[in-house]
């Protein structure tokens, strides 16, 4: 499949819409691979070390600064990349998976871990296989903190026994185990029971990350995944009818490998990808093709993306997606040629639009269906942000030229008419950004 500059509709459906700064670019046969340099240094180990030091010293200002700077740098970089990518399919995939393996900066400690999470755990693993991506996500400090895995200790572990000697009771926390099964892999109807959740939670005990040690300045390993055998629940577990009697890390790893290749997981992932790239209620044939590819390629994600790219359903005009606030925001900025945006502005805009970056209310992430976003208030908010954005970033081109360049064949006569008749350039561009063409993809 060759994606060329002229393919406005493709870029709209698979990417983030044509960008005024990227009207011409080289043909691309593998748009799911990174289009631009995506390196990002969050200075992660030192940041974690500084955070814990500040926490220990109860230095609230310092904590606040670390959280704000790290999250701010991250969202500015995230937006910058999404604006710079000529097509944006790879970027969209990053954001899709980041939302699939959702964390939320609602939890303070997650805020400064979020940038590294999306860049090193998600972004660098979306072109491998599903198991790799799953492992990178669930072993990252952001996820371990967000879903309380750091608090889960095997009731029959060495650590629990020691605690009991001191009169303290520590035990299981099922949060991560449950969400891996329900949200990340098998899906809510994936055929597991509450007992399976508990058994899986036992197997996961010991999952932790390396924290800064006292009296050392070498933080190079800080933040890395750490399996702590002393926390791990002793003995075998029975999960979905099979016994796992491996010792230590091999036990949860065997379960994770099993669920990562399970048909229910294949169906769950296939459905979510099809929903994201085709329709809220995706055509069954597309879901089947994706599911079979997942199962026959051992969850090779690039193969899944190839299926999407080659599926006529994804380009069929009868299927459209109502843009999420993020989608709408990014495609709108691209349309008027914005290259970079200050973190404060991004945050304010996303807050107004109702989808702060990596801040969903629950581990299931942000919804990916029209009914979640197409509300009267949302339309008004988009009108509001449009006005502000065009006032701030007025491109030199005429609104009609921009409309034609960005929407190509998909530009309707009505929108062209309204845009060309608007009273001012500002009004014309703001109207273009909230036009039906730009509200959906």
């Amino acid at each position: 499949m060759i994606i060329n500059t002229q393919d406005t509709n493709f870029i709209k459906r698979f990417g983030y819409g044509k960008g005024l700064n990227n009207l011409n670019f080289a043909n691309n046969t593998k748009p799911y691979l990174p289009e631009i340099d995506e390196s990002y240094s969050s200075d992660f180990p030192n940041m974690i070390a500084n955070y814990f030091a500040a926490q220990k010293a109860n230095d609230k200002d310092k904590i606040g600064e670390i959280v704000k700077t790290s999250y701010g740098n991250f969202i500015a970089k995230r937006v910058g990349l999404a604006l710079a990518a000529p097509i944006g399919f790879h970027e969209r995939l990053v954001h899709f998976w980041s939302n699939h393996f959702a964390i939320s900066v609602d939890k303070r400690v997650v805020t400064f871990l979020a940038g590294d999470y999306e860049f090193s755990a998600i972004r660098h693993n979306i072109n491998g296989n599903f198991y790799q991506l799953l492992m990178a996500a669930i072993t990252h400090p952001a996820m371990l903190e967000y879903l309380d895995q750091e608090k889960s200790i095997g009731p029959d572990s060495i650590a629990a026994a020691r605690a009991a000697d001191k009169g303290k009771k520590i035990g299981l926390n099922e949060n991560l185990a449950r969400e891996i099964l329900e949200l990340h892999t098998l899906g809510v109807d994936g055929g597991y029971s509450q007992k399976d959740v508990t058994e899986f939670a036992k197997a996961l005990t010991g999952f932790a990350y390396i924290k800064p040690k006292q009296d050392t300045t070498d933080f190079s390993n800080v933040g890395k995944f750490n399996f702590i055998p002393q926390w791990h629940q002793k003995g075998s577990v029975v999960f979905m009818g099979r016994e796992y009697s491996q010792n230590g890390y091999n036990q949860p790893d065997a379960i994770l490998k099993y669920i990562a290749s399970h048909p229910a997981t294949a169906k769950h992932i296939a459905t979510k990808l099809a929903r994201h790239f085709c329709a809220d209620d995706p055509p069954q044939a597309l879901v089947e093709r994706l599911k079979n590819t997942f199962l026959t390629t051992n969850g090779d994600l690039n193969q899944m993306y190839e299926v999407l790219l080659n599926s006529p359903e994804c380009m069929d005009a009868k299927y459209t997606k109502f843009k999420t606030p993020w989608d709408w925001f990014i495609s709108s900025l691209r349309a008027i040629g914005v290259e970079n945006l200050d973190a404060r502005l991004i945050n304010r805009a996303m807050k107004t639009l109702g989808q702060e970056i990596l801040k969903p209310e629950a581990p299931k992430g942000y919804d990916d269906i029209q009914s979640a976003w197409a509300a009267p208030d949302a339309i008004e908010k988009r009108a509001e942000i449009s006005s502000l954005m065009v006032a701030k970033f007025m491109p030199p081109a005429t609104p009609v030229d921009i409309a034609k360049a960005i929407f190509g064949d998909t530009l309707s006569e009505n929108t062209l008419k309204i845009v060309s008749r608007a009273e001012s350039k500002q009004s014309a561009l703001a109207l273009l950004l909230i036009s039906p063409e730009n509200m959906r993809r």
Partner: protein
Amino acid sequence: MKIQRRDFIKYAGGLGLSGFIPSISFANAATETRFIFIIQRGAADGLDIINPRFDKNYFSLRGDMALKDDEVTMLDNGFALHNSLTNIGQLYKDKQAAFIHAIATPYRERSHFDAQNILELGSGRAYEFNAGWMNRLMGLLPQNKSTEAIAISETIPAALRGNNKVTSYYPSNIKAPSDDLMVRVASLYENDPLLYDLWLQAQQTSKLATGDEMENAKEIGKITAKLLNAPNGPRIAMLETTGWDTHSAQTARLKNNLKQIDALVGQIKDGLGDNWSNTVVVVATEFGRTAAANGTQGTDHGTASCAMVLGGKVKGGRIIADWAGLSQANLYQNRDLMPTAQMYGLLSGVLGETYGIEPEKVAANLFAAAKPDKIIKGIMI
């Protein structure tokens, strides 16, 4: 009714700008006569405002939605007035209100935006030229060059735009977003039922959020009267009202809108005091609505509607209507009230008689692009 929709900038929860923002545009003309044009943007339903009770087809076409006897006040010739219009009803009794029915501009299609543009330009086609008929009217009147024009909105509506100097008044505590944007969003979504409906709902919601619409309407009336009373103040004003596009829940929405426009008129009259005797107010909409109810307790875009002429100099207490009837065969395109009166004919008559200019001259100067062949005369004292 909402007098302009400027209440949408509430940026990021920070600046917190909201609330009703009026839009009155004034033109200064050296005369003691006051002329006020109130546009009802969105196509007001003439059949439920000046209600043809004598036409039995009204009841069958509107079904459950048809106004009940206790929702109207009988006027003359079988027509009744919507009960929400108490001040206007009193004006009728005092012979200071005339209603013209089955009236329309030359426009025969059903786009709000184009229709409003035509009604404001006094043109035959949308965007035929840039200057509006109210601006051309100023050219016919003696100008008082010493008086600065006044602004109340940041943008000037099309009816007032043109070569003659017009400004607008605008309260400083409220920041206006692009009026133009707001006005055009509905037409932007006219082929997109989902977005159109969401936008309408948003407009309703922001009304609720902006507090007391009724108080706002009264406030606008007071401001208008105050400005028109000022010794060197403007003598021509235009007010914009919206919310008339009642595709659904017409009964409640229309009632609400009518109460507000009635309060607005009441305040203008009270505020003008003695000057009311020198004042003429024309209320008009871009087109009417379907004769039949639609499936959502509302009505869709139609053709003819009604207009009102109010004021101390009006030969009122009359309904001027050449009624074609609401039987299927008599409807325009089998769906709308058949237009029998010409909007430009009414305006030519009213303005000519108000300012002592030959109505034909008014028609030739203001409405040359679509000159009315039926000028309504004898409407002013």
